[in-house]
Structure formats: C-alpha cells, structure tokens
C-alpha cells in the first residue's frame, strides 16, 4: 500500500496496450469498451447507417409505430426516429467530448498554475473554482446559455465551464503530491527547470484520475444537455440530440411510447457504458482513486 503512494513513472503511465488488455480482461471493462465503441462507431458511420434525412417530415407517417419501414417508429413530424437516434449519437457525443475537452483543458492549466505557484495565485484560482462549484451545475449552465444565446457551441461551452473545477482540483492535488516527493527535489538538484519538471512528472500522475474523471464527466455532460433541452435551452432544432428528442417526446409518451423508449435506451446504454468503462479504468489505473 505504502509503495503506491509514491509516484513511479513506470506504473502511472503503463503502455497503452497493457491498459487496454487489462480492461478487456475485466468483464465489466469489456462491456464498457464494447458499449462505448459501438456508440462511437454509430456516430462516425451515421450517414451510412441512417435511413432517412433527419429533418424530412412526412405528413402521412405521423407517430407511426416501429415497423419494417421505420424501425424505431416516427415522431409527430413523421420523421424517422432511427435516423434521428443515429445522428443524435453524433450530437450527444460531440457535446460530451467538446464540453469535457474544454473542462479538462482549462482544468489542467488552472490546476497546474494553482499547484505550481501556490500563494495568492492559488487562492484566487481556487476561489473562482469554489464560486463556480458553489452554483448548481444546471442553473449555471442555464445562466451561461442565457447570456451567450442558444446554440450547440454555447451549450458545450456552458457544460464545459461547469465542469472545470473538478479537473482543476484533481490536477492541483496531484501537483502538490508530486512537489512534495523526493525525486522532485532530486530533479531540481540536477538543475532541470521547475516548470519542465512539473509537466514531465505531474502529467503521468494526473493521467489516471484525469481519464477516469473525463469518462464520468462525459456522461454527466450528456445528461446536462438533456436537462437543458427540457428547460428549453438545449441545442438548436432540427438537429437531434438524444436529450432534445427525449424532451420533445414527453407530450407523446402515452400515445407513442417509442419516442421516449429509444432515446432513453440509448442514453442509458451510453452513460452506463461510459461509467462502467470509467470504473474499470480506475481499477486498472489506480484502484484507490476516489472519484
């Protein structure tokens, strides 16, 4: 146990192959990888999988039940739910990935700066983070979208900003751990520049919590987008996101349950996959992470 407290470059950053192999060996990890893989594949191949134009309306097929022509049925515009689900994977993943990218990027930078400089800079950064954190994420996201205007980019920015503090904290904690260890002092005595040392040694140490955090934040982002759609501040129609499809479908839940069933199913499967993958990743990378 004690041994693990000391960051060892070799363990913290094992070869990619070995991580994947270890994940695959764990049945949960395997399930998560397959699930995430399928969703990504669906998003990438959307133009080839989708059977209809996602915006194409059909007055003769309003609220059609699932069948041979419309596999997942149609909505109140007669649009094909299957095609919208397939393209929705793109939008939902895009929102998740970009939002988490924004959060992770800024979080990494701010965490580094805070951990490195300490003192006033750190206090200031962490205070701003506390302020962001202190605000319920959905309300903060709504606030940001109200200010910037509704668009897919602004939705991503809003969800991104909301998630910055978590990443900042993770990175700062790692920086502090690394700074206190002997080998930083050693490296310093060798004469390496401080900043360089940090980037070189902190990055591998941060990677584990970071990856895990990212998979979790990604599923959180997909859910936040759904809630924002519900409150009328989601992405712009006629682009489908699973969240907006689900929100639009509530009125028709009783008459056309497939409108709720399929987006819900795909949201659940995706989030489940990402979470399971995140869990297993943590077990593989660093079992004592508490995220």
């Amino acid at each position, binding site marked *: 146990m004690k041994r693990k407290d000391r960051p060892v470059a070799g363990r913290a950053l094992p070869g990619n192959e070995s991580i994947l192999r270890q994940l695959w060996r764990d049945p949960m990890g395997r399930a998560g990888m397959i699930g995430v893989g399928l969703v990504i594949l669906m998003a990438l191949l959307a133009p080839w999988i989708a059977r209809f134009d996602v915006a194409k309306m059909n007055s003769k097929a309003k609220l059609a039940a699932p069948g041979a022509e419309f596999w997942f049925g149609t909505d109140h515009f007669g649009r094909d739910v299957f095609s919208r689900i397939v393209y929705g994977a793109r939008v939902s993943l895009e929102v998740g990935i970009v939002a988490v990218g924004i959060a992770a990027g800024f979080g990494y930078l701010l965490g580094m700066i805070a951990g490195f400089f300490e003192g006033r800079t750190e206090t200031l950064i962490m205070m701003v983070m506390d302020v962001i954190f202190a605000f*319920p994420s959905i*309300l903060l996201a709504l606030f940001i979208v*109200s*200010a910037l205007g509704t668009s897919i980019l602004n939705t991503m920015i809003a969800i991104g900003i909301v998630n910055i503090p978590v990443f900042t904290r993770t990175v700062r904690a790692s920086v502090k751990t690394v700074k206190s260890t002997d080998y930083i002092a050693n490296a310093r005595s060798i004469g390496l520049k401080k900043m360089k040392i940090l980037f070189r040694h902190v990055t591998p140490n941060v990677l584990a919590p970071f990856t895990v955090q990212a998979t979790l934040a990604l599923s959180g982002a997909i859910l936040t987008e759904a809630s924002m759609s519900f409150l009328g501040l989601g992405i712009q129609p006629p682009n489908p996101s699973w969240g907006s499809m689900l929100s639009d479908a509530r009125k028709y839940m009783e008459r056309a349950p497939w409108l709720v069933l399929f987006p819900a199913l795909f949201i659940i499967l995706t989030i489940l996959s990402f979470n399971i993958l995140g869990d297993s990743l943590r077990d593989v990378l660093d079992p004592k992470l508490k995220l």
Partner: protein
Amino acid sequence: MRDYIIRRLLTLIPILIGVSIAIFVVMQLIPGDVVSGILGIEETPELRAMWEAKLGLDKPLIQQYFSWIGRAVTGDFGESFRTGAPVFPEIMNRFAISAELAILACIIAWIIALPLGILSSLKRNSFIDRIVRVVALLGVSVPNFASATLLILFFSKAFHYYTPVKYVGLFENFGTNMEIMILPAFILGSVMAGSVMRMTRSSMLEVLRQDYIKAVRAKGSPERVTIFRHAFRNSSIPIVTLIGMQIGALMGGTVVIEQIFSIPGLGQFTLTGISQRDFPVVQGCVLFIAFLYVMVNLLVDILYTFIDPRISYS
C-alpha cells in the same frame, strides 16, 4: 477549532463579493431585461422609460450595484422587480422546501446505496458485485425529467394516483407533505445513489485491504463487527464528503424535478428569476446558494473530527 471555523467563515466574504459582482455583470450581459418581460408586446419607449425609472434601472450601473450591495450587507436583499415582494423571506421559505427535498433524497440514496456498496465491496468482482454496480448506475443514467414523467404516467394509469397538487408545508400537515415529497425525493435519491454506492464501494475496498482490518479479523471478532465498527466507520469520510457536496448541489439543482412536481423550491425561484431577468431575485438566490455551499462544506469538515478523532484543525 474555533479559530479554524472563523478563518473558514472569513473566506466567505471574498467568495460572496466575487459571486455578486459576477452575477451583476452577467445580468447586464444577458439579452433581454426585466422591463421587456413586464411590458411584453405593449412595450413603447415611453413605458420603458417609466419602468426603468420606477425600478431604478436608469441610474448608472456602478450606482445600481452599490445601492444593492449596501442594502445586502445589512441583510436586506431588496425586493423582486416583478412582484415587489421582499426577496429574503421568500428565499427562506423556498430554502426550507428545497432542503427538505434534498435531505429526503439523501436519506433515500443512503438507504439504497450504503448496503449495496458494502455488499458489493465484500463480494468484489463477483456476479453480485457486477449486478449491483450496473443497477446503481441505472439511476444515474436516466435524465430525471424522463423518469419523473414516466412515473407520473405510470402511477396515474396503474393506481389512479397523483401526488397532492396543493403544496403544504412539513409543519402544516406532515403526512400530506411527505406524500408530496416522497416521489420527487425518490427520483433524486436514485440518481444520487449511484455515486454514493460507487464511493462506498471503493472506500470500503481500500479500508478492507488495510492491515488493521486483517488484524481485527485474525483476532476472531465477528465479521459483522469487523465490517461495521471498523471498516465502515473508517471509510465513511469520503462518503460524508460526497453527501455534503450533493446536498450543496441539490440546492437549486433540483429545478427540473421541482418544475414537474410543482414544488415551490429554491431552484424554481432562481430559474424564474433568470428567465424574468429579475435581478434582485437572481442575486439573492445565487448568493444564498453560494453561502450554503460553503457552510455545508464547513460542516462536513467539522463532521470529520467526530468520525475520525485523529483529524483536528488548528
């Protein structure tokens, strides 16, 4: 300990000032303002001027901010631009409701998650462990507006049941109040349960690996005692942290559920404030939520010293 608390409370001041400035600036940047909401389609330049004068919006921005903050430090959060009602008492009313909902949700989350988390850690990597983890995650995976709508539909169709439509306070009628709150709390709780379960499991796993647990076991103490008195107690710090964070996040974070179930909570108050551009309401709500968040975290830190006597603050 006392010094520590005072020091922590002092950090509140810059946070609250920061939040209040941020909100003020954002409210200026947001398109639309309270006057266009009041006048709607009837807006004319003359009417707009009247209302701006009436609400003090014709004054310079800096002056507007300082006149607000000047009153705020005396505990007066001003009056709603829309109704003219004082903001602070309304925040208090709503806070009581949201707090009740959040606490109930937490209790439900604990009831679901703690036993499952402990079970799952004891049977690590077994079939049961996997099932438990997936089930716990299911709660997190469904957007809560969808599960709420589904439950409402289900209860109305299957049992001809709808939660009481008229809100009554906890102290007016305990039974009815519980009946109103239980379904929304259950939905929120099932979402929280996932992360509580995950945290319980990993904390337990870590503690169970420790040498002293092995020692206790070797001593021959019953497994139940080992798990609850030793392992669980020692793994409860991160769990308490998480619960603290979640209660904080639930303040206002319950807005979707509040809206669907018509619960007059803090989240809806803030949301209405934002959509009506009712600056005093938004400012008051946000500051209060920020204050609460800091307090809950402080409380959590103090709680640590009770759970683990080794922790002390100087």
